[in-house]
């Protein structure tokens, strides 16, 4: 079955941009999108994504809060926080929430590195 990845970002452009990179890096994957934390939780419960990419700075619940919540409810899903906010506190909180931190603007090599590690984690489940 094709790997499912959920992209969570309040910016449509950011979602489109990540989706484009994914179409190049992992053309066979199913790409799901959510514009906020509530939609992301709903999609996670209904569609059971294998991997999740979260924007940090979103209206309502932030990506970090959502990552912590997902870490509780779905500890098997590899999660990355994608943010231009590279302050040490944010990177540390991402790690505490069990997520990988990736700097924005997202580049192909940085995303590919996370995807490879996430694939290995998914395969080991």
């Amino acid at each position, binding site marked *: 079955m094709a790997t499912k990845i959920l992209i969570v970002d309040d*910016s449509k*452009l950011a979602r*489109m941009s990540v989706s*484009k990179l994914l179409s190049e*890096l992992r053309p066979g994957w199913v790409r799901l999108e959510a514009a906020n934390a509530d939609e992301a939780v709903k999609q996670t419960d209904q569609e059971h994504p294998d991997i999740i990419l979260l924007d940090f*700075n979103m209206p309502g619940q932030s990506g970090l809060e959502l990552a912590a919540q997902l870490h509780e409810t779905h500890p098997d899903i590899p999660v990355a926080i994608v943010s231009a906010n590279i302050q040490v506190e944010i990177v540390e909180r991402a790690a505490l929430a069990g997520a990988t931190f990736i700097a924005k*603007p997202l580049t*192909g090599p940085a995303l590919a590195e996370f*995807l*490879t590690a996430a694939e290995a984690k998914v395969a080991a489940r």
Partner: protein
Amino acid sequence: MIAPESLALDALEIDALTELVNVGVSRAASSLRTMIGSEVLLSVPAVEMMTYERAATLIGEREAGELIAVHQSFQGDISGGAMLIFPETNSLELVRAIAGGALPLDDIIALEKEALAETGNIILNGCLATIANMLQQTLNVSLPEIIYGSGSDIFSRSPISVTDSAVLFLYINFSVRHRDIHGYIAMLMDLPSLTALKALIGKMIERATVESTSNHATH
């Protein structure tokens, strides 16, 4: 309203501009954090194009007292001014945050202008450089200038002629953890620059969204 309809941005262009600003300010906040050693908290940005009078009113409604703005001009395909604006009452606290708490008040007062200029330089340059990179542009940025006054004073005293400029008002509230410091960022641009900005945003959207037909990396 000064911006003609041809300059109106559609939903995806506003989204792109907001994302551009979000990335720029987040990077700049990370630099400021390094400088002051405390976490810088950012709100979700709101971006709106408006006249400078409206921008002055908006700030005036939120901030009752005098303001300080650090202004830097930028030049390139898009030209204008970028401003970091905060309440004057925050300025000594900001200097304390940068210089450390042990300095005597006289030294803090003596350092005030320099510290404000340096903070503005880091935030505005960081923000402008990120935006320029994402738009694949080069912008030359001037040295910072400090402007004191009310909301309308800081716009009318800007070296950029405000009468024929629109303000790209980036409302992003930043604050410093455990410190009473917050502020806003605004950009002023004239109509030719706004036209150029709209075109550059269009190109950025194209780069970010057009599916590449070759060079598929397989794994």
